[in-house]
Every structure is written in structure tokens, then in C-alpha cells.
């Protein structure tokens, strides 16, 4: 466990590229927000700066299995420590980003909302209606699921299984979206993990799916060449 914590610490410290891209994106959105605020374009809409922080966890979930994996292996890290350490990263990042996004929602978003028309995903997804604590947990669980999915999909790309998975996802989306009865299944799935009227069910489903999807990494990692 101690080694996994060290892996998590190293991953956090060595994800500067993800932080930089997120910071640049947030900066760009801030400028746009400020301009909208100055000229009072409330119909312009757009999403909150806090939501741009989601980019950070998405980028980390791409860079950790692609860039950090080999570097950690060259420091003689065991694959199992990488597995647990990376998941700890996503738990931590999901929690931090959820808190920060709520801070943005209650401060900057509230301040600018009337003159810029910006929306925050906690509002769009209806999470904030369940109170601040549940909104935090719902957001945390959703971000954890997103990170687990992206990490796993990225890790899979080194083998043919990854390409088959990509094709399967593309096929599912392109077949399910245009056909109404099938589209209902997709909508049902997104209702479960995002728009669920039962916050506890949404949190539970997201966390269970995160663990299940992330555990696919065990056989993937164990077969992975260095």
C-alpha cells in the first residue's frame, strides 16, 4: 500500500503537462467569460471555468498509462503498485476537482451568471438540486468513472483488444443513435450514470462501474510489455 501511495504521489507531481493544458484552457475560458461579462452577453451561454477542470482528470487518465507507466517501471515499480497507485490518483483528483467545481459554482459562476449566461454541469445534470454534499458525491463518482474508462481505454490501445474496443464503441454509438428503440437504451444508460433521479443509485452505479472497468487493467497490465 505504501508503494502505491508513492506511485500516486509521483503521478500527481509528474502530470505537469495535464495541469498546463488545463490551466491554458481555463485561462482562455476566463478571458472569454470576462469579455462576455463586460459586454453583457447573457444569451451567449457556455460552460463554467470549473467544468474546464474536468479536462485535467481526462488528460491525466491519458498520460498516466502512456507516459508515466514506462518511467515508473524503469524505477522498478511493480505493476500491481502502478495499478493501485493510479486508481488512488483518480480518487484524489475526482475529489479535488469536485470540490473546486462547487467552489466555482458558488462564487464565480453566481457572480457572472446573470451577465454571461454561463452554466455549470452540476446544474445542467441536476446534481446541485440534491444539496451540496450529494452534488459533490455525484460529481466525484461520475469523474471517477470517466477517469477509469479513459485510463482503461488508453491502456488497451497497446494491444489489438484496444482497437477492437474502439471499433465496438464506434459501432455501438453509430448504430444506437439513429435507431429510436436502441437510442432509448443509450439514453437509459446515461440516465443511470448522469441524470439519475436517485442520487444514491447514480453514485453507487458510477462507483461500481468504475471499479469493474478499472479492474480490466489487471489482465491488461500483466500482459503489457515494457
Amino acid at each position: 500500500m505504501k508503494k502505491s501511495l508513492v506511485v500516486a504521489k509521483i503521478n500527481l507531481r509528474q502530470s505537469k503537462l495535464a495541469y498546463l493544458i488545463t490551466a491554458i484552457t481555463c485561462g482562455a475560458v476566463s478571458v472569454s467569460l470576462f469579455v462576455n461579462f463586460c459586454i453583457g452577453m447573457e444569451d451567449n451561454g457556455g460552460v463554467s471555468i470549473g467544468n474546464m477542470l474536468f479536462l485535467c482528470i481526462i488528460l491525466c487518465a491519458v498520460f498516466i498509462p502512456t507516459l508515466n507507466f514506462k518511467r515508473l517501471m524503469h524505477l522498478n515499480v511493480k505493476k500491481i503498485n502502478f495499478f493501485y497507485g493510479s486508481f488512488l490518483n483518480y480518487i484524489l483528483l475526482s475529489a479535488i476537482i469536485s470540490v473546486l467545481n462547487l467552489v466555482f459554482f458558488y462564487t464565480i459562476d453566481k457572480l457572472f451568471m446573470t451577465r454571461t449566461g454561463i452554466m455549470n454541469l452540476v446544474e445542467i445534470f441536476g446534481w446541485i438540486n440534491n444539496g451540496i454534499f450529494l452534488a459533490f458525491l455525484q460529481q466525484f463518482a461520475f469523474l471517477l468513472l470517466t477517469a477509469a474508462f479513459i485510463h482503461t481505454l488508453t491502456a488497451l490501445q497497446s494491444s489489438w483488444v484496444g482497437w477492437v474496443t474502439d471499433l465496438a464503441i464506434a459501432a455501438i454509438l453509430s448504430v444506437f443513435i439513429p435507431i429510436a428503440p436502441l437510442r432509448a437504451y443509450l439514453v437509459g444508460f446515461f440516465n443511470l450514470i448522469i441524470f439519475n433521479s436517485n442520487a444514491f443509485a447514480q453514485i453507487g452505479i458510477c462507483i461500481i462501474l468504475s471499479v469493474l472497468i478499472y479492474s480490466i487493467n489487471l489482465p491488461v497490465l500483466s500482459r503489457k510489455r515494457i
Partner: protein
Amino acid sequence: MIRLSNVTKEYARTMALDDISLDIRDKKIYCLLGRNGAGKTTLLKSIAGHINVNVGTIEVDGQHVDTMKMPADVHFIESGSSHFNAKIIDLINMARDLQDDFDYEFAKNMLTRFKLDKEKKYKQLSFGMQTMVTTLLSLASKAKIIILDEPVLGFDAFMREQFYDLLQESFDNNPRLIIVSTHLIDEIAKVAEDIIIIEKGKILLNTSINDIDERAYSLTGITQDVAPFRNKLNVIGEKVVGGFISLFVFDNRVDPPKDVKLQPLGLQEFFVSLVGRND
């Protein structure tokens, strides 16, 4: 400690390892020699569990090895290993935090001795210096088996001398099994005790450097004096210059007639003859 039984590894119709069986037991410095593409890196990566073999088994300390069961006691480092672009001291701190019994003092002493600026970032170093840091990180680990793949690549003569000192010092401090793959046979012979020669995926030789010193020699003389030895001894190569012929031999020493000159064979010449014979 390391046992390979009938190991075969094939890459898209190229036989990298061809039915290799090998036992490496003692705590020594071993030199793995072979030409480019002979299968050195594949062999070393297979032992470290970085890649899987197609046929055969590899065991380290009796434990089966593959990518699913990478041996904890093996530290494999190749030249050009990727590392975080962190300060050198931070890399050492990371290694200390990640590895049990990492010899922090040894690593710090070596930084000072090799005049490596601990505040410099990894990518600010020259290729040779990066390799030195990588080597230092592996030698400071307390792994029972250290595998260094082409560690002197990119080193100038001075750095190579420093590297051999570092290797010897690390071994003296902590005797263990160290395998070093290299092309520079004469240099590694100063510190290595045993030599393993691989060619076209097969082990050609696995013996001690002393054995080579004793049994590798050349017989030089006019053709009719030297020719009779051709069938009696294990001749690994020959060279004809003018009317003289030199036979390169790897066999027990003989007492040659006075017109035939016996000379010890340098390791480089021995290696070239042995490998060249298989062309």
C-alpha cells in the same frame, strides 16, 4: 538463480532466441556478448519478465517468470531508459521511496564522484550522463539480480572507466548477480568473471574469462607445420598472411614444435573468430 529451459522467442519470422537453455547461479559479474541483433536484449528482457517467450520456461529463484509474474528481485535497465524529466536528486528520492533498502548514500556519493549536478533535470543531461544516472539508480537498488543492457552506450573512454569502477565498487559493497551486455569485451573483462556469448539466438559459449585466457590461443607458422593441428584441435578461425598461417584455437594448450609460435588470443579476437565461424 536464473534458469532458462528451451526458450524460444520469435518476432514475425525472426528467431530472436532459438531453443536456449542456460543456468546462471553464482553471484558474479557476467558479460553477455553478441553482435547487433544476436538476441541479447530479448534474452535480458525475457529474464526480467518485460516480454514473454513463445516456448520454454524462465525461472528466477525457482519462480516462473513472464509479464504477469515479473521477478521482484530483478532490476533491468537498458540504455535509453525513459525517466521523468525531474531533478536528478528527485529521481533518486523517487527510487528510494519506491524500493526497499535502496542505497541512498551510495547513490548520493556516486553523484558527487561522477560530478553529476543533482539539481539538473534529467533531460538537460547528455545521453551519456543520462545513462550514468540510470545505471546509478539500478546499482543503488538492493535487487539480487541487476541486468544492464548496453550500459556504456554513449560513454566516452573516461566515462567508461568510471562506469567499470562504479560497477566493481557496487559489486564489492553488495555481491550479487550482475549481467552486463556490451560490445566492448576487452574493457568489461577487467570486471566480469564469466562470459556468455550469444549469436543468432543461440548460446555459443558460457564460460569464465579465465577459461578463455587459458584455452584461447593462436598457432602461427608455415602451412605444413601448422596444418596438422587443424584436425586435432578446436579451431575457431584462421588467417593466412603471406606464407604463414595462424590458427585461432579454443582448446587445451599443446606443446607446439619450435617453428610454430603459440600466442594467447585477445578476447576481442577470440570473440570475432568464434562468432565469425558461425557466419
